């Protein structure tokens, strides 16, 4: 395959940056998208140009590091992470525009790499349960209804990649927030801190500069883990309950 790549190049956070066009030949359709970028970077190395910086880690779709906006779609045209996206999803001769996540809460560090520690701070604000250390408690002593456990598990698949924010026209992280709130709120272990958790996480979300949700649904379409939109309803319900309880 031969491709024309338009890639966002930005030296550092202060640099203005811009799209730069590269021609790349000899791309196999069995390559993953990141392997295609690896090939490009080898080519750039040979010509003495600085390779394109992009985030990646596990390359098996579970870490949430690889964050690329591909032709206007977070993680590209398939429902998966960029690392699990293969070049067979593209056509020979195609022009592909590759940009970093765009959100002021996710500032660009370099090229396609963004600083997504805003998500870490949201988790630190309440996305956990407090448990005493020591020997593990007897698992069967805390019964969890099966449907609730299933829902919690389904939304716990959120890998915090930030595609929801990247795809949202408002730059909102509501799907991410909703996934965490639903995950912990459905389980008995999450109950003691439920009100405080949603209040703190929403406050941190707003303080980070993410936008508000308008229930459009671009987030869930972009989510590689197919987190459903009802987690945002759950988030809203939990916050409404927390307000009623005095938060």
């Amino acid at each position, binding site marked *: 395959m031969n491709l024309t790549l338009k890639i966002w190049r930005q030296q550092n956070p202060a640099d203005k940056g811009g799209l730069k066009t590269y021609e790349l030949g000899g791309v196999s359709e069995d390559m993953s998208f990141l392997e295609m970028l690896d090939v490009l970077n080898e080519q750039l190395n040979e010509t003495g140009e600085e390779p394109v910086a992009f985030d990646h880690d596990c390359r098996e779709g579970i870490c949430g590091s690889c964050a690329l906006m591909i032709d*206007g*779609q977070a993680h590209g045209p398939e429902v998966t992470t960029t690392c699990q996206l293969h070049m067979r999803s593209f056509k020979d001769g195609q022009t592909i525009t590759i940009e970093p996540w765009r959100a002021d809460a996710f500032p660009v560090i370099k090229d396609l790499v963004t600083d997504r520690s805003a998500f870490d701070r949201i988790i630190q*604000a309440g996305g956990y349960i407090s448990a005493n250390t020591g020997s593990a408690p007897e698992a069967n002593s805390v019964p969890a209804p099966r449907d609730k456990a299933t829902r919690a598990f389904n939304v716990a698949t959120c890998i915090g990649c930030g595609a929801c924010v990247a795809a949202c026209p408002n730059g909102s992280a509501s799907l991410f927030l909703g996934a965490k709130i639903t995950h912990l709120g459905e389980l008995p272990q999450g109950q003691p801190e439920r009100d405080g958790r949603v209040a703190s996480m929403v406050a941190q979300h707003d303080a980070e500069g993410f936008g508000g*949700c308008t229930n459009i649904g671009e987030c869930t379409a972009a989510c590689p883990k197919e987190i459903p939109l009802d987690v*945002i*309803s759950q988030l*809203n319900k939990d*916050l409404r309950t927390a307000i009623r309880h005095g938060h």
Partner: protein
Amino acid sequence: MATVTAVKNKRSSRSTIALKLLMALSGLIFIGYVLAHMYGNLKAFSGQEAFDSYAEHLRTIGEPLLPYSGLLWIIRIVLLVALAVHVYAAYTLWARAGKARTTKYAVTKRVNSTWSSKTMRWGGTALLLFIVFHILHFTLRVVTPGSNSDSPYERLVGSFEIWWVSAIYLVAMAALAMHLRHGTWSAAQTLGLTNTASARRNANLLGYLLAVVIAGGYSLIPVFVLAGVIS
């Protein structure tokens, strides 16, 4: 290692979601009002006598407990407060969304947005301008195309017999249909009522139903005036 920033204002009632809740609740007031308003308008099909006496009745409801037009003024104040809240929340969140992404994408591809969801802000602004025009037209009678009769029925018919007045109202009803379509669904979601796939489907269907019934119901009147059925 990420560092925790201290959040200054932790009050949940100051959050973006609280603003959305205000927008949803004020929106529900509007849905209730436009349904009642449409019921009154459809009296036009029963003729001048029925329409005008209904309009007069609205002013005498609750007498002598309430003064003349008392209930109307209560409704107007509730609507004005709801409008202020709705508009404040909408423009605050609009501005916030703009600040959340100051560098735009070179390429964007929306795959899951309905037309109505994309037009909420500008469509809502258009509806705001329409509401101003509508009040100047039928309530304050500052703009009186066609007729400035003391009979509401004659003003209605006189206005809608002019094609461009009808056109303004029909376009506004199209905008209202779009706003109601997404607004109903969005309000249900914001109020936390759509926690299952079937609840989400129902909220969406209710949006379509309200859009068709309300905007369609209102549109019947200028259409039938233009057709000469109401005269």
